[in-house]
């Protein structure tokens, strides 16, 4: 196999993805920027006026910001977990999804923590967390975990990008100067020699194992922020594994949606095939069964224990939040299971639909974990205004939430303009492996 020629072919094949800028894509990018700008306006208002412009009050001190934080951070951890598994076990179809997963991991880990900053009433005192950290506080553990994980994910993502940067550097004739310089700088003199390749594979493999372990630890720490309190609905011993399963549920769903969109808009049918959707769909089925089991265990044990505070919480969930509860814990779990369980339903569109339902259900589940619990605390609330007990998100909170989602999509598009979403080096490695496997005719 002529590697140099093959690299050239691949660059030629993927370069339209890097250069193409259609009218639709420009409108789409403009739309995303507009949403982000609205979010920035909302942020300025919140920064100037304080949390009074949000729906958060004395009793319900957490709202959709913390839900977005959990959602994005869980997405990131699950991305890291899945990516680690794909690389560590050298999964055959990893080339089609690995880069999507890696980009999701890093972007959600950048966007997620921004929401926790929006939750803080006194942002000007943020540095106190670093000046006076309390090792016995789960919040401190989470800060350490997120920062360590963020750096780890960046390094890991970079490692997987290096061979592609080198290919793009070597085949960047006719590209703008700045692009050539960026590729040269990022490729760190990588020339795909035997020793360089070996070294890179070795550290990528070690990092992938590290990322799996780190994701599990960071997941658990995030769950402990809730479960180590005595709040009804949070104080649960299965919260850490429940969060891991829920995170994987959201992670796989987002990957399926991203695969669908990239396949549709970048015409990558050749690389992202139905078999990949079916594979991801079967994994989603297994995870949805586990997630359903954990959800049932969680609520069943609370209902059976008949503790006053838990009963009050369940009463709120089954009355005030009845439809939300049905959507989150019945529709959000059972619909994906039904679609993915039967072979004849496993089409690309139906699998993507199942993933969308799963994502929406999971987001609602997160809402039901945070808000109703804060609305039914242990100590009875007396003589206070109704808006201090009941939470409704304001337009400021929604604007910032949508700005977060828009930023996530925009960064995704920008990264796809820098490197191909299908790793070229992965394709070459795969072809190299296949060639080695072929029996020689003597």
């Amino acid at each position, binding site marked *: 196999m002529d590697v140099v020629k093959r690299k050239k072919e691949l660059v030629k094949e993927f370069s339209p993805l890097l250069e193409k800028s259609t009218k639709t894509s420009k409108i789409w990018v403009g739309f995303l920027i507009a949403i982000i700008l609205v979010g920035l306006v909302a942020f300025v208002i919140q920064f100037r006026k304080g949390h009074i412009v949000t729906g958060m009050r004395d009793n319900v001190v957490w709202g959709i910001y913390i839900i977005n934080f959990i959602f994005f951070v869980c997405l990131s951890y699950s991305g890291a977990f899945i990516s680690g598994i794909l690389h560590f076990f050298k999964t055959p179809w990893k080339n089609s999804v690995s880069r999507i997963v890696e980009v999701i991991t890093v972007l959600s880990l950048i966007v997620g923590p921004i929401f926790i900053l929006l939750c803080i009433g006194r942002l000007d005192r943020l540095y106190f967390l670093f000046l006076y950290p*309390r*090792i*016995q506080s789960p919040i401190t553990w989470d800060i350490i975990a997120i920062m360590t994980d963020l750096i780890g994910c960046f*390094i890991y993502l970079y490692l997987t990008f290096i061979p592609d940067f080198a290919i793009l550097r070597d085949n960047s004739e006719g590209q703008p100067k700045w692009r050539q310089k960026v590729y040269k700088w990022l490729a*760190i*003199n*990588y*020339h795909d020699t035997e020793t360089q390749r070996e070294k890179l594979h070795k550290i990528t493999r070690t990092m992938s194992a590290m990322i799996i372990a780190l994701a599990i630890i960071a997941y658990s720490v995030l769950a402990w922020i809730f479960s180590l309190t005595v709040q009804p609905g949070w104080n649960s011993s299965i919260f850490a594994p429940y969060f891991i399963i829920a995170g994987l549920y959201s992670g796989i769903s987002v990957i399926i949606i991203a695969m669908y969109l990239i396949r549709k808009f970048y015409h990558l049918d050749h690389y992202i095939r139905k078999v990949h959707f079916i594979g991801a769909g079967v994994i989603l089925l297994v995870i949805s069964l586990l997630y359903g089991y954990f959800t049932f265990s969680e609520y069943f044990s609370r209902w059976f224990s008949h503790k006053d505070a838990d009963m009050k919480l369940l009463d709120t969930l089954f009355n005030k939040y009845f439809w939300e509860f049905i959507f989150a814990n019945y529709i959000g779990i059972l619909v994906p299971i039904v679609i993915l369980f039967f072979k004849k339903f496993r089409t690309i569109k139906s699998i993507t639909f199942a993933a969308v339902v799963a994502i929406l259900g999971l987001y609602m589940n997160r809402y039901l974990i945070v808000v109703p619990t804060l609305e039914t605390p242990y100590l009875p609330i007396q003589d206070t205004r109704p808006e201090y007990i009941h939470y409704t998100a304001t337009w400021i909170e929604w604007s910032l939430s949508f700005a977060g989602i828009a930023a996530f999509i925009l960064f995704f598009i920008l990264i796809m303009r820098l490197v191909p979403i299908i790793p070229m080096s992965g394709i070459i490695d795969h072809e190299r492996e296949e060639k080695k496997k072929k029996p020689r005719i003597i």
Partner: protein
Amino acid sequence: MKTRLFKYILVITALGLFINPNCFAQKSVLKNYRVRFGLSTTKQADNSRLLEVSFIAANKKDRKDRVPVYDADINFYNVTIEEDFLLGTAKTDKDGTAKLTVPADYKYVTDDEGYINLKAEFEGSKDLKSNDDQIAIKDIFLELNLEEVDSVKTVILNAYSLDSLQTKVPIDETEIIFSVRGMISNMPIKQDYMSDGTFEFEFPENISGDINGNVDVFASILDNDEYGNVIQKKNVNWGVNKTIIKETNQLWSDVAPIWMYVVLSILLIGVWANYGYTIKNLFSIKKEGKELETKQED
């Protein structure tokens, strides 16, 4: 909602009655309420006597709806056959309670059987009828002794009344409750019947005292038909000082447990060492690439 509205109207009416006698009461509202007027008495540890009146309007239909009558003048009397001696006057507070403490040295006039007859009276206003209540109680004395008998902390109570010749007559078959002062209410430690005017028992060993180990011990006769409420109290240094164990695994403790530092350090060192190793390898890859480029240029 309707009941609450009535309640407010009644409170305003009752207030108006006492603050401004020219106000018009809403008799139709008052009809729904039954006025409860009750007198009780407590002989206190210093032998003074507390007279207490509860003056409350209770809804006939809704037992939970109770409206205290505020700022009503209540007269307290020592009643005799010939004459009622005024002991004093007190106003009801926001809970509808009027209290009067009669000093220990007051000489009550008793009837032929030795009962003190006490009366509380509300003279009435333009719209609220007059009310009174009367009780008859015998004056008794409680002597509480806290002694160590053969190194055993013993609570000894003697209870007696005085006859006309000032001779002590022991109290018999009367329920007595012993308690110690707690933070919110008194904690009972013994409840039994007295015989022959005396009762004794061993003080429990595990009762917490204040910072110096002092504890207030109470002997009480409560809601007795013949004696009313009688309370005696003494302070003694028999309390146990609870040792506060300093727990280490708390969010608010000064430092985290050592194991937490160890686990966190191992995890962080392990992860960051791996990052360092990865970056070192990246530099090595870069160096090798540089050498290769130089060779090719040469």
